[in-house]
């Protein structure tokens, strides 16, 4: 009997060291399911997208992407930002010195990329569901600065890979980072 009572106090004794958080709480299990462009079509596993000059009335459609995220745990997630690193698939011949293929585009944030801040919430599972709890957001990926870069630089050979990383925190306090690459074809 004494052993049982002692066992019951162990989690409580651990509480001061874990900030009153249940040490057995799981972290969220989150993935990016896929991206969908607002324009263009899917081709050979890549999403092609048409971009145009800044200021065109419909250009805004080409500038954002719908990201679909799934959560396979019961722990919800709050997202606070996403970053996009732009890599030119072909060599950046215009740079001094020329940069090899797949280098980050300096004019679009370089290796650190661009950071977009937002506040978004993804539910945890409310009931058993093998497909996970899915939600999507329309996030900006293409900026006017990137459009200007494409207009003034040879980017049609290979296009641009956009490495998108979503940052957040789950409800048990764990950092959540999920990422994927969305390809931008320039023509």
């Amino acid at each position, binding site marked *: 009997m004494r052993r049982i009572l002692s066992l019951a106090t162990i989690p409580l004794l651990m509480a001061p060291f874990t900030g009153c958080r249940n040490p057995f709480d799981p972290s969220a299990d989150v993935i990016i399911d896929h991206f969908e462009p607002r324009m263009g079509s899917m081709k050979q596993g890549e999403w092609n997208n048409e971009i145009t000059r800044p200021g065109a009335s419909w250009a805004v459609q080409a500038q954002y992407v719908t990201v679909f995220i799934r959560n396979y745990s019961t722990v919800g997630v709050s997202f606070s930002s996403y970053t996009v690193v732009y890599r030119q698939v072909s060599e950046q011949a215009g740079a001094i010195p020329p940069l090899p293929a797949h280098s980050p585009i300096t004019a679009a944030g370089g290796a650190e990329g661009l950071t977009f801040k937002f*506040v978004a*919430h993804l539910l945890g599972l409310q009931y058993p569901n093998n497909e996970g709890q899915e939600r999507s957001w329309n996030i900006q990926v293409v*900026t006017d600065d990137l459009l200007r870069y494409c207009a003034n630089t040879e980017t049609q050979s290979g296009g641009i890979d956009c490495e998108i990383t979503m940052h957040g925190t789950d409800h048990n306090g764990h950092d959540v980072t999920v990422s994927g690459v969305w390809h931008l074809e320039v023509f």
Partner: protein
Amino acid sequence: MTRTIKTLPLVLLAVAMAGGCRNPFNPSADIELAEITCSNKDTSSNDNKVQVTRPSLWINCTYLKTLSTIDYTQYTATMNFVVKNKVIVTIRRISMVYTDPLGNEITLYKNVSGGRTFSTLYRFSFPANNNSGSGSYGEGVANSIELYPIDSKVYETIKAYPYDTMYVTITAYGDDENGYDVRLSGTVTITFFGECNK
């Protein structure tokens, strides 16, 4: 055996105090800022024939320049809160601080302490029973405040702004009925496109 049972509550109390746990008889509202949703009702582009909701604000400079006055309600940011305890929360003040991508404060509000600040009064709903909530944000009851981050001073700033994006950090200040301060903050991106200052 009896002594063990008697000392157990004391052990629990000591652990709770050492761990900084709150008095369960004086709980806070356990309120969270779950989400900020943004809406653009600008009907000038094909994309926006209907109201579009995104996690960021999009400003069409080409369209904005044609306006003699700004309809604040075209660009909204809605703070969505969730209250998880049966404690009333009152929001009394909102501030908005605008920064550029490098983190520097901008807009004509930058000389005002706390950015653009205004008083308000919102009394939030709370869970009335064990079945309350289970809505958009899981457990708890959702409440929202609709705000208009784009006004004439922001518009004047945009005219001479060198970047495509800026951030607005929105903070709601208030308190709950058990005396706990409430201060919840979130940052969203404002994106400019079209014929801006470039």
